[in-house]
């Protein structure tokens, strides 16, 4: 009988409006968040061994500087000035090898015979995210890990190997090959083993672990002065317009392309963030809407509710119906949103699988959806019950 009486107070169109709005909002939130997780590997796991927001800068080589090489080096003042810029998060220096290096292969192995002069540089280890057990060297180690630019491999595969009739090499095979390094200087000479452990897109240099370079510079170095010609800069935000302005003014060279991917990923994240914010606003509006609608129902039927209280109904039994209606509506709405979201994921996964080789990731949609459901239900039940309680029980008579 109570249900029959209260059923008449519900405005079905408002309830339907709430279900649809909440469904749309939750659907967008769930799908966007899932899309973010699904695409995250694409955004972060690039071949690049550097962080997203780092770039290498050097000074422009000009006619004068090619004569007077001192002008190519960064002074301590210049470095600290750069460090002080608002768009710069961190500046690290490249260390140069101050000795001669010769790389060569043994004839017996399955490797083309080669011999070449090399140079080495190093940067602090935390800028490199190659598997750390590979990127370690200490004096007892025989094999020196090396990171080379990915372009070198392409140059070899599509240029050199093609024209010389040599086999092309994948990144994996290259990583298996060990070759020899002959290091000389300061009237000393030593042969090490070496192996390529990573490929970089962002840095045009041959990198060895910092620990090796320090050791070798000390042992084979020709002078004690360390000259810095290249810097590794981490930006707060790589799309900042001031970066290019500042570098142009100072005649520093930075490869703009290197920032493109960071930009793309930044735009993608911003767009997704924007969509999620809008969706959350939709969800919040739907919450506001249903609470407002409930308040209207209560105001419109205040006499009925008061009379129910007067003939002996407790506020709990009066509010139970409204709690149930709002909870069920929310449940229907969120289950629908979860369903659409899962369908949508299947749809975009098919498209993405054609384009990229992405790992299969777990779905957070159902879990997140139920978190929404539980949180909203708790909020609604508290709001509804307190509202009815305030009407039926005068303030200082709560019993």
């Amino acid at each position, binding site marked *: *009988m*109570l249900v*029959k*009486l209260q059923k*008449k107070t519900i405005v079905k169109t408002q309830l339907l409006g709430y279900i649809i709005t909440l469904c749309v909002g939750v659907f967008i939130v769930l799908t966007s968040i899932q899309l973010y997780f699904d695409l995250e590997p694409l955004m972060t796991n690039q071949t690049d061994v550097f962080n997203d927001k780092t770039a290498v800068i050097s000074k422009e080589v000009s006619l004068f500087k090619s004569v007077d090489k001192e002008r190519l080096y960064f002074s301590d003042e210049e470095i600290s000035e750069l460090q002080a810029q608002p768009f710069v998060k961190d500046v690290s220096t490249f260390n140069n090898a101050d000795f001669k290096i010769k790389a060569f292969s043994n004839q017996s192995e399955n490797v083309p015979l080669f011999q070449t002069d090399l140079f080495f540089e190093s940067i602090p280890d935390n800028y490199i995210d190659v598997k750390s057990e590979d990127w370690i060297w200490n004096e007892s180690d025989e094999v020196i890990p090396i990171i080379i630019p990915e372009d070198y491999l392409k140059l070899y595969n599509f240029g050199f190997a093609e024209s010389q009739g040599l086999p092309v090499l994948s990144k994996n095979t290259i990583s298996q090959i060990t070759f020899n390094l002959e290091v000389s200087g300061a009237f000393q000479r030593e042969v090490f083993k070496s192996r390529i452990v990573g490929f970089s897109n962002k840095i045009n240099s041959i990198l060895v672990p910092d620990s090796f370079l320090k050791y070798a510079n000390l042992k084979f170095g020709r002078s004690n002065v360390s000259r810095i010609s290249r810097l590794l800069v981490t930006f707060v935000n790589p799309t900042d317009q001031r970066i290019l302005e500042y570098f142009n003014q100072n005649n520093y060279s930075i490869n703009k392309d290197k920032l493109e991917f960071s930009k793309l990923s930044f735009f993608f994240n911003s767009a997704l963030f924007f969509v999620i914010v809008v969706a959350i606003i939709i969800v919040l509006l739907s919450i506001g809407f249903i609470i407002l609608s409930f308040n209207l129902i209560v105001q419109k039927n205040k006499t*009925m509710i008061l*009379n129910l*209280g*007067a*003939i*002996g*109904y*407790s506020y709990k039994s009066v509010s139970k119906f409204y709690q149930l209606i709002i909870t069920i509506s929310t449940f229907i709405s969120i289950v629908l949103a979860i369903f659409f979201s899962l369908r949508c994921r299947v749809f975009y996964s098919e498209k993405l699988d054609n384009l990229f080789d992405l790992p299969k990731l777990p779905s957070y949609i159902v879990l997140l959806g139920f978190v929404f459901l539980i949180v909203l239900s708790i909020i609604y039940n508290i709001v509804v019950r307190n509202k009815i309680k305030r009407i039926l*029980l*005068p303030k*200082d*008579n709560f*019993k």
Partner: protein
Amino acid sequence: MAQIKLNNIKPKYMSEAEISTSDIYLKENIVFEQGKNYLIKANSGHGKSSLLNFIYKSNINYTGEITYPFSDNSITNIRQNKISYVFQDLKLFPSLTVLENIQLKNTITNYKTDEQILGLIQKLQLSHKTHSLVETLSLGQQQRVAIIRALCQPFEYMLLDEPFSHLDNTNIKIITELLLDELHQRKAGMIITALEDLTMVKFDKIIHL
């Protein structure tokens, strides 16, 4: 004997001058004993409904103290099991039928069976209206519905706020007989408010408000 006791009760919204002649307001130890019938007589505007609402805990806008003989003094317990109230404005639900209005109350405690309810409806000559919406009934008929509804719960006291104002003498006679019978069975007390004396009931005490 169990009793409801009033001490120095005064509505906050009435001045002392307005209630200076009252036998209840601002008096000590006003006692309503269970099993006895009380008539509270006053002209309109003297706070008859207020007094019943204070006792029923639906208005707490008073100073002074009311003590109850019940073990559980919560609003819910008082309204469901201890005090039944026929409101002056009846508080019926116009969109429900006569039977539904009564059942709405009866389902809280399931005090009366459906047959008993139909019997009461018949006794008060409302059988032909059992399934009519309450909004289609005359005031007198609605008053009778409200009285039947008030009987559909356990109680130790019954409050009636000008219950016969729209009824003819024949009906008043039928209703008072029914009420006194029920009260006697339940050993319950009754507090009726009225503008003038009610000759059909023998009251244990008549109080001027």
